[in-house]
C-alpha cells in the first residue's frame, strides 16, 4: 500500500508552516473568505465567537488537498504556487451556505443573551490539521504564536463553532501553558429556534462524540427544537458510528471518499436526511445524502 503522506516532504511542510505562521490561516488563503459572514459583529473583546475559518474553507479544502501532490512535484516553485493558492475561491453557493450557518449560530447565541465579539482578519487558525496529521512539534510551535494573538487581544473565553477547532484549542494545555476558557456554542444554548420537519438520522462528529463528550449536548438541542431523529445501534451508537472519512482527505483523497460513501450508505438505511455538526462531515457526506448542519436544523426559520 502506498502511504501518500510521504509525498509531503520536509521542505514542503516547512513552506506551508511558514505561511501558517505568518498568515494564521490553515493554508494560503484570501482572508476575506473567512471574515465575509460577519457584518455587524463587535470587534474583539474578552469573549469571542471563534470560527477558525472552518465552515468557510471546508468547501475549498478538497482543492487544496489535490494541490499538495502538485506542489510536491514542483519544489522549485513553492513560493509562487503558494501565492497562486491565495486566489482559490469556494463555490459561491457553498460559501453562502456556510456564512448563513455562522450567522445563525451568532444569532442563536445572542437570543440566549450571550455577548461576544469576533476577531475578523485577526482571528488565528487553531492549527487543528497539524495535530491531526501528527505534526506534534509544529503544532506546539504554532500554538505558542496563537496564544500570543489571543493574549494581545485580551481574550479570556473562546466560543467555538466546529469540532476540529474545539478539539485543537482544548488540547493546547497538553503542549503549552494555556489558561483561556474554551467552550462550544452548543453548550451555551438554553433556547433554540423552531426545528426542521422530517425524520433525520444523526451522523456524529467523531471528535464531539468520542473525544469531547458532546454527544448528548446536541441530542438535547434537537429534542428541544422538536426535531425527530432515529437511532440505530449499528449506525449511530457511540461505539458503532463511523467517521465520514474527512481527516484522510489530505492523506489519500480516494480512500477518504470511499469511507464517506460507505458511511453515507449506512446512514441512508436509517434515514435519507442526515444531521452533521461539522463542516468537513458535510463536505464528505453531502455528495451521497441529504445533509444538514445542526444549526440549520435547530433554527430553521
Amino acid at each position, binding site marked *: 500500500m502506498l502511504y501518500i503522506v510521504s509525498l509531503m516532504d520536509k521542505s514542503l511542510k516547512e513552506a506551508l508552516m511558514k505561511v501558517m505562521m505568518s498568515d494564521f490561516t490553515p493554508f494560503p488563503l484570501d482572508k476575506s473568505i473567512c471574515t465575509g459572514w460577519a457584518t455587524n459583529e463587535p470587534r474583539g473583546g474578552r469573549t469571542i465567537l471563534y470560527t477558525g475559518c472552518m465552515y468557510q474553507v471546508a468547501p475549498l479544502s478538497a482543492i487544496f488537498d489535490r494541490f499538495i501532490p502538485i506542489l510536491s512535484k514542483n519544489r522549485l516553485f513553492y513560493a509562487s504556487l503558494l501565492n497562486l493558492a491565495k486566489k482559490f475561491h469556494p463555490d459561491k453557493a457553498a460559501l453562502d451556505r456556510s456564512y448563513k450557518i455562522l450567522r445563525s449560530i451568532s444569532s442563536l447565541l445572542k437570543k440566549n443573551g450571550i455577548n461576544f465579539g469576533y476577531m475578523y482578519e485577526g482571528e488565528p487558525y487553531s492549527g487543528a490539521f497539524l495535530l491531526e*496529521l*501528527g505534526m*506534534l512539534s509544529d503544532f506546539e510551535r504554532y500554538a505558542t504564536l496563537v496564544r500570543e494573538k489571543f493574549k494581545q487581544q485580551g481574550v479570556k473565553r473562546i466560543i467555538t463553532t466546529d469540532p476540529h477547532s474545539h478539539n485543537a484549542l482544548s488540547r493546547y494545555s497538553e503542549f503549552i501553558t494555556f489558561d483561556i476558557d474554551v467552550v462550544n456554542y452548543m453548550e451555551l444554548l438554553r433556547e433554540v429556534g423552531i426545528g426542521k420537519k422530517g425524520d433525520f438520522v444523526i451522523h456524529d462528529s*467523531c471528535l464531539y462524540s468520542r473525544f469531547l463528550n458532546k454527544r448528548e449536548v446536541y441530542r438535547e438541542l434537537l429534542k428541544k427544537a422538536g426535531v425527530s431523529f432515529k437511532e440505530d445501534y*449499528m449506525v449511530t451508537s457511540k461505539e458503532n458510528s463511523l467517521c465520514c*472519512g474527512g481527516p*484522510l482527505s489530505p492523506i489519500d483523497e480516494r480512500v477518504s471518499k470511499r469511507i464517506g460513501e460507505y458511511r453515507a450508505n449506512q446512514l441512508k438505511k436509517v434515514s435519507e436526511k442526515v444531521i452533521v455538526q461539522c463542516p468537513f462531515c458535510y463536505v464528505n457526506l453531502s455528495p451521497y445524502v441529504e445533509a444538514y448542519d445542526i444549526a440549520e436544523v435547530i433554527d430553521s426559520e
Partner: protein
Amino acid sequence: MNEIWNIAIDRAVNNNVPRVRSILESYPYINDARKKLRQGKTEVIKDISKYVELTIESVKRNGGNAYFARDAKEVREIVDKIVGDNQRIVMGKSMVAYECGVRDHLIERGKDVWETDLGEFLIQLSNEPPSHIIAPAIHMTKEQASKVVRKVNPDSKAESHEEIAVEARKFLREKFINAQVGITGANAIAADTGSVLLIENEGNIRMTTILPEKHIAIAGVEKILPTLEHAFLEVMVQSAYAGLYPPTYVNLTSGPSSTGDIEMKRVSPAHGPKEFNLILVDNGRIEVSKDPTIWESLLCIRCGRCHFHCPVYRVLGSTWGDPPFTGPMGAMWSYVSYKDATPSTYCVHSGGCREVCPMDINIPKVLEKLKSLSQK
C-alpha cells in the same frame, strides 16, 4: 476485490458486533476480569526482563525447555534446532510465528508444514496474508473458500460453511496423526507456574499440542502474566471480546506429558508430547515498553474487536498494516514488530477502537505519536 471485501466485512460485522454486545451483557463479571487483567499486564510490561526470567525458571521446573529470542531470526534458529530432522509439522494459528516467518522458513527447508486452523489453512492454500488477527480468512466469502479447498481435493463438492469445514477436517486428520512437531502460539503465559494457555473452538490446537512428540509454543513476551489466575482471566476476556464466549476449548500446558502411575515414579512422556518448548519473543517489544505512550500497544490481547469499529479497516481491510497486523491494533503493531509507523498515517481518529477495546488502550493517542514518528 473491493466488492467481495464489502460483502465479507459486512457479514462479519453483522455477525460479530451484536454477539459481543450480548455476551458482555450476559456475563457482567467479564468487566471486572478485564480490569484486573489490565493491571496484571501492566505489571509485566513495566518489568519485562524480570518476568521473562521468572517464566523461564518456571517452565524448566516443569521439565520443559524455555528460550528467549531477541528477533525473528533467532526464533527461526531456535525452531530449527528443536525441529531437527523431523519432517511433519502441524501449526495451530500463531501470529507470532507468522510475524517471525516460521512457516515459510520451514517450508523452504523442505518440511511438510500444515496450518490447522481453518482460516489459516484456507489462506495457506490460497497463498494470501491474514486479514484479521483472529479471523485470518475474513476476506474470503464461502464461495471463494469452496474453490480454495479444491486445491487439496479436486473432486470436492463442498459449498456450505459446514461442508468446507468437513473437507478441511478430512484432509488434516492424517496430518495431525503423523506430525512429529506441533507449533502453537499462546494466549497467555503464567510466570508463576510456567503454564501456557490457549483458547480455541476448532479442536485443532488441542490436537497440535497433544498428538506430536514435540510441542513448541512461540509467544511475544507481552503474553506473560504474573500468575495463573491472570492467565485464566486473559482467556476469558479475549474470547468474550472476540465474540466466542464461552470458548469451546481452553488448553493449559505446563511442561511435557508425564505419569507417576508405576511405583509413583514420575516418567515422561506419557500419551502427550515428550518435549515442551516455549520460545519467548522480543522482536521490538522491550524497546516499545519503554515509550511513555506507545507502551500501551503491548496491552493488546488480540481480540480483534477494534477492527470492526474502525472506518478505515472497514474500507481497506488487509491492505492496511503489515501482515499479520491489520486494523487499529495492526497500525500499532506494524510499528512494534517491524518499526513501520506509516500505517498510523491512515488513522482518522474516529475513536471507535478506544471505545470498544477491553484493555482500554488509548489507540488514537498511540497512533498520533506514531504519526509524528513517521515524519521524522
